[in-house]
């Protein structure tokens, strides 16, 4: 189980659960396609490492590491 901050460009992962993510953030994430079981790919990383652009369910979403830090992911090797 990893957090998004440890992922590199091009890696894929699956959302296991939202961990300690605050409710307000969770509810925003659902609407964008992030739900338990969803697959995501790290497409781009901004200068200085943050924010990251993540592909989920066919959509490219940019997010800050701190917003996503509590989401627990399982990396695909």
């Amino acid at each position: 189980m990893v957090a998004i901050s440890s992922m590199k460009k091009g890696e894929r992962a699956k959302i296991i659960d939202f961990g300690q993510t605050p409710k307000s953030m969770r509810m925003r994430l659902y609407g964008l396609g992030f739900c338990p079981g969803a697959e995501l790919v790290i497409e781009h990383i901004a200068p200085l490492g943050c924010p990251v652009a993540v592909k989920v369910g066919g959509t490219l979403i940019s997010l800050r590491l701190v917003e996503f830090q509590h989401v627990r992911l399982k990396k695909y090797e």
Partner: protein
Amino acid sequence: MNNSTLVLVGNPNSGKTTLFNGLTGSDQRIGNWPGVTVEKKQGSFCLANEQIEVIDLPGAYTLNYEQIDSLDERIAANYITDMQEGVLLNVVDASNLERHLYLTIQLLEHNLPMIVVLTMMDKVTSKAIDVDKLSEKLGVPVVAVCAHKAKGLDDLYTAITHRDDISAENSVHIPYPKEIKTAVYDKMRFNKQLSYAQALTEVQQEQQDADIVVADARYGLVREFCKTTLTMPQKNTSSITKLLDKLFLNRFLGLPFFLFIMYLMFFTAINVGGAFQECFDLSSEAIFVNGLASVCLKLHMPDVITAILAYGLGKGLNTVLTFIPVIGAMFLFLSFLEGTGYMARAAFVVDRFMRKIGLPGKAFVPLIVGFGCNVPGVMATRTLESEKDRILTAMMSPFMSCSARLAIFTVFVSVFFPHGGHNIVFALYLIGILVAIITGFFLRGTLLDKSLTPLLMELPAYHMPRANVLLRQTWGRLKHFVKRAGRVIVPVCMCLGALNVLNVTATGVVIGGEGDSVLSYIGKFITPIFEPIGLSHNNWPATVGLLMGTLAKEVVIATLNTLYSGLAGIKPAAIENFQFWPSMVEAFQTIPANLSSLGDALVNPIWASRADQALKPEVAGTISAYFPDLASVFAYLLFVLLYVPCISTMAAIKKELNHFWMYFSLIWTTVIAYMTSAVFYQMATIQQHYMSSILFLMAFAAMFYFMQFVVKKNSVTLIGMSQKGCSA
């Protein structure tokens, strides 16, 4: 039930706006949602002899929100919850079915008549979606269109014509766990007024993890629908988007490219737009100021009337119209950037840096524009999603030293700081930026939320916006500006302009003749207030310059020229020589002249945008006598840098935000300007008067803490006032 209203609801970037434009054509009204500063779009069209109203709700990803920042979601959710009549048009992007259906499921739970409109059909292979199956599963009519190419619209019109046959009852059963269902029905029994959707929302808000379970159930159903209706897996990103993003989002190239785009935007808005500004200025001056004045003269109107009409009202109209080319150019460019989808990338690239000053990445754009002119800078804040960010950026905008101020700086610097003058100017720019950042921190600690707006943002596929859409958008916004800003600018211009031209002579208050203008009298009266910042009381022209500067910074040098050389104001004698058509020709001739000098602007757009002004040589000598020391000059320039930006900027703030923030900006800028220049001057000249300097410094420190105290103590009332948005 009156069903002649269609309500468009869907995700941002779903093609909703394109559909809205396609349905309503040019019959649109743009206003604001009551109480907030979010754009509201309404329109209508005729179908089968019926007038159908269309409302375009703000794009929403979900109807269940928790944060205040999701203003768009809140507006959409509230509207739908309160909806008694009308038909929902749920716009769904066919190439992103799963995510869009998440909202569709929520909409179904509101038990309202609904038609699902699948857009972007050109992006999916023609047989990829079984539209009939989807309609069967959802229990509502589903129509496939390609809004860009106007295909499938006939099917949509047919569906709309038969809207009365649509059942509002939701036939889809979402498999929520038993505990959730029980909790919802309990609530509904307890409160008969509560609808199913409202009860479900409340349960999610009250119970700790209910939302996860609910989202899970919804997505489970959505996935099942997709599996049965999609005959092939959805295509991944278009290759163009992938290619362009390789450049724009590149870890190393992304930032330089962004700076290049900013440079282009500045150039287009300020330099190219500005090339047309002189034409608008001169021609509107010829019509509304000089033309009107000569008409008044011919009709033998009393001078006071002429002053108010021509030099007040006329000047006001002239001021408003002069901004049109620059604002129009900026809006066009920004609409283009946003329409292509690049804006989201820009925000992505710059986010990390902007975060340090408490702003989101997108705020970089309005601030950059502000270096050319504050008016389009403030208006560009409407591209920011969160109201709080808009307020913050608009409050910081006035401190971005605009090109008109640059003209004032260069003039003074050439007289007083012949060597190293560019350092002075650079220092002023930096101070402006610093004060802007401090303003941001002050506001975030007191009247505004301290938290940072989340970035979570979709990066849509690139696409080429259509020219007519861009032009229509720009035109709508320009119209809006002229109407709302004009309402503020014109009255103020009427006062100041008239006062500037009316002279107090032995025979009474007239235009022309000997004697000082009314404004000069006021200036002389007020000047003692400015002693602490270094204006000696015989330096009243400088004060009048500041007063006129509230109208527009461009007129400060002209005013100073006039006053210091002791000449009278605009003379009616000149009016008798005024010729309308030659003036108009002259006005239009400035266009090619300005366009040809654009080549210079390529190298340094900011420098090129400053107005061409200089002090008359005889004035340059006189002025040195009035400013006793260099410190007083710098203090004056500090004041010019920081104090009230022109009335047009104030009007723009009122239009983009509300009354409260306009007055706040007015007071804040003036107080900061005064305190900063006074502190500077007192520190610089401390040797001349230790005692009074120290007293002043203590007084200012006390005032600063007092202001903070007052604001913090009344924060509840002030926040209430600050949130009253402008009504449409």
